[in-house]
Every structure is written in C-alpha cells, then in structure tokens.
C-alpha cells in the first residue's frame, strides 16, 4: 500500500522534474519579453532527436548531449533574432502567434531532417531498477532528478548572485531603466531564448530514455510545461519548479488511483482550475495578462 504510493510519487517526481525544466523555459522567456513561447516544446524535441541522431552516427553520449543542447540553444537564438525581434513593438498576442507558427515550422523541419518514427536513447547508466523501500526507481530517474536539482541550483546562483542574472531580472521588471543602466536589452532577450531552449533540450534528452522521443514529442511536453508554469504562477522561477513537481505527482497519482486514461487530462483540468480560481497561480505576484 505504502510501497505503491511511494512508487507513484517517484514516478510523479521524475516526470514532474521534466515539466519543471520546461516550465522554467516558459518563465524565463515570459519575464524577458512577456511572450508565452509556444515553441518551447519544440526545444525539448530538438534536444532528444538531435542527441539520438548524433549518437546513432557514432558519437559517444557525453559528446552528443552538449552538442544537441548547444544546437537547441542556437535554434532559440535564431528564433528570437529572426522571428521575435523583427516584430518588436507588435502586440503580445501577435508575438505568441509567431511562436505557434515557429513551433509548426520546427516540427515540419524535424520530419525532414530526421523522420516520423519513434526513437529510443539508451539510458545513461543502465536500466537495472534500484529497490527503495519496496518501490523501485530507474537509474535514469535519478539522472533526471539529479540534473534538474543541479540546474535549479545553478539558475538560483545565476539570477541571485551574478550581475548578468540580475540585469535579466531588472530588464524583466523595468526595461527602460535597465537600458538607462547600460544593459543591452536585445542581448538579454537573445540570452533568454538561448537559455530557455537549452533548458528544454536538456529536459528532452533526460526523458528520452524513459518515454522515447519523436518529431512531435514537444507538443504534449510543451503543453504540460505550460500548465506547470501557469500553476506555479507565470514568470516565477520557484513557481515553475513547484508547479512542475505538483503536476507530475498529480498525474501519476491520478493515473495510479483513478485511471491512466485520464493522465493527460489532469494537466488541462489543472490549467482550467487555476485560470478560474487563482489566475496568478501559486507564486505569481501580478494578475495574469489577458490575451
């Protein structure tokens, strides 16, 4: 009984960590530009697919992974430079529609560059389950949790301790004053897209050995990450992490105790409930912007 609950919690925590990484990507871009980047899921897909194809071409994983992350970050920067930047001054809704267009384009390109098949990535350190108080956990889950924790700590340090991180926060709060301090806000915007894309790609790579990856894996993961970001309060880093974990655990418990058929519905029920009853989420300070 207790072992079963622990099993569900561990599964929920693993997938929740992935949602948290995707949600952090949403938060960072939203802070920098007030845009909800619906191409966020595609960064997840690019991370997983690029790693698979690099690994298949003979590169060892420790080399394939950083290359795939950098490639995704480059796509993020290109998206900002050539799709978002030229539309500067357009309404936020316009910018959001641009990101939806970009996501469709990226999915299409993925089917051309790669294919429409499902791909598996080998687990980083075997697939022998580890016993834990009657429940089991895959070594890959430990990778997911460990890397996510590391990233959260790293981001905390970056935004809390470095001047560049603080300049990004300052730009989010007051772009005019940030410019008058000599912050290049266009650079901040590019950095935000690059960083978000890298986070998404890392999520996609970590989860690929557990759930497989394919050209359209980003659709669902992107929406789940968005739900997590909304639950936590859009724009809040802490909110993104807490929202992701909560959503993952809710899904896992729902699938375990109610029916696995409703697993994906959980995220959308949560989005609707949050938007109806507390539009600024758990940690959001300002009320959500109407779009």
């Amino acid at each position: 009984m207790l072992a079963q609950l622990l099993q569900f919690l561990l599964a929920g925590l693993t997938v929740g960590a992935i949602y948290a990484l995707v949600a952090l990507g949403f938060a960072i871009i939203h802070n920098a530009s007030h845009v909800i980047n619906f191409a966020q899921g595609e960064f997840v897909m690019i991370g997983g697919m690029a790693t698979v194809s690099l690994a298949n071409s003979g590169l060892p994983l420790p080399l394939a992974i950083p290359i795939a992350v950098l490639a995704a970050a480059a796509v993020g920067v290109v998206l900002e430079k050539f799709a978002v930047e030229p539309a500067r001054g357009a309404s936020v809704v316009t910018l959001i529609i641009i990101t939806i267009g970009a996501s469709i384009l990226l999915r299409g390109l993925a089917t051309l560059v790669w294919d429409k098949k499902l791909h598996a990535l080998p687990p980083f350190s075997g697939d022998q389950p580890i016993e834990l108080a009657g429940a089991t956990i895959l070594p890959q889950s430990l990778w997911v949790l460990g890397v996510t924790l590391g990233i959260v700590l790293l981001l905390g340090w970056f935004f809390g301790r470095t001047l560049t991180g603080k300049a990004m926060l300052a730009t989010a709060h007051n772009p005019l004053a940030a410019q008058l301090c000599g912050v290049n806000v266009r650079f901040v915007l590019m950095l935000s897209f690059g960083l978000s894309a890298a986070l998404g790609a890392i999520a996609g790579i970590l989860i690929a050995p557990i759930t497989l990856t394919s050209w359209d894996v980003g659709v669902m993961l992107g929406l789940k990450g968005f739900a997590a970001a909304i639950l936590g309060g859009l724009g809040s880093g802490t909110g993104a992490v807490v929202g992701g974990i909560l959503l993952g655990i809710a899904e896992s418990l729902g699938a375990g105790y109610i029916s696995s058929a409703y697993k994906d519905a959980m995220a959308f029920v949560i989005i609707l409930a949050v938007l109806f009853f507390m539009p600024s989420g758990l940690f959001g300070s300002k009320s959500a912007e109407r779009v």
Partner: protein
Amino acid sequence: MLEVGTLTSHYGRIQALKGLDLTVREGELVALVGANGAGKTTLLRTLSGVQPASGGSIVFDGADITHERADRRVKRGIVQVPEGRQVFGPLSVEDNLRLGGYTRPRDEGDAELERVYSMFPALKERRRQAAGTLSGGQQQMLAMGRALMARPRLLLLDEPSMGLAPRLVEEIYAKVRALKQARTTIFLVDQNARAALSVADRGYVLETGRIVLAGAGRELLGNEQVKAAYLGL
C-alpha cells in the same frame, strides 16, 4: 561636450521635438525648464537613445551619437536619472546600485559603492531592503546613486524634485550642488523652474518642442516672461 543641432523626434506622426539646438560644456550645470508636455522628457530620452531621433544631430565629445544604441551611450558616460525614479522595486538597494555600475569594470564596483554610500548614508542603512519599499525621497536618492555608479561624464536629471515634500526637494538640490562642486557636468530638467534655474550656470526654456529662451541661470530667473510663465509671479 554635448552639442545638439536641429534635433527632431516623433511619436508616430506627432512631432515632439521641433528642431532643438543646445550645448552643454564640460563642468557646467545647465537647466532646462518648461511646462508639462513641452518635450523635456522626450529630449532627455532622445539624448539617452531610448527614443529615436528623426532628424538633426547629437554630438558628444566630438562623436556623432545621434543613432547610437542606448547602452553604448551609457558606456560613453551619458547617464540618466529618469523621471519617476524607475528603481528596480523587487531588487535590493545594493543590487540596484550594482546594476548602475553594469557598464563599469567589475573590480571597481566595491569602491564605487562606498563612494555612493558616503554620499547617501540612508541607502547604506537599507542596503538589503527591496528598493520598492523605500520612500519617494529615498528612491530618488537611490536613482541618483544608481546613475553615479556608472561614473557619469554627463549626468541627465529628469524631474528630480517631482512629487517630493519641500524639505526633500531641498535635500536633493543640496546633492545636485555637491555634484556640481565635484565638477560633474549636469543637464537638469525640472518643472520646478525656480529651484532648477537658481543652481544652474545656464538655462534654456522649452515650449512645445522648441527652445524659446536661453541665458545665464540668474538672468532667466529675472526675466519677465519666465517669471510670468514658470515662477507664478
């Protein structure tokens, strides 16, 4: 040091600056006075590069910076204290100040911070506090301190006394005088024409996007037109 020639700027189709000429020389304190909507803030925004110039020229230290990016102008030493303070509310007082020194070499930060704290001791006491929790007067001090962190060669001050009690206006202007004594070049814009003109070496009067009067600060204070329009005499 700063030479502005027939400068124009538009908001959409509305022309806010209609061909301005003015100069600021090294070490001078120059004041710009004018009514609401005359274009004072637009001029400062255009000088800082956060509002595009549609014509004319801005020359700083012999270099044409009319279309240069805002952050590059800060690196050159043109630093603005914007209207309404615009401090970074959720960040601490110290973080606000450090961001002011964003364009400076990192190793200068600590010495510069101490200089600013010695000028504004109230900020040092509240260094860990969120900037948004400061009073209006303290926020104005913070905005000035933040600008000083960039080691300005030309300090642009936009409405430093706006919304402050008379005692605080006095305090802010005491700081402005101290900066002038330290040979900082200052271009000051204020609706409080009396306060601004009485500290200024020279002054300009701006009306609907045009300079209509120029002269020494004292001279303008005594000018009948200025008295009637801006000093309420």
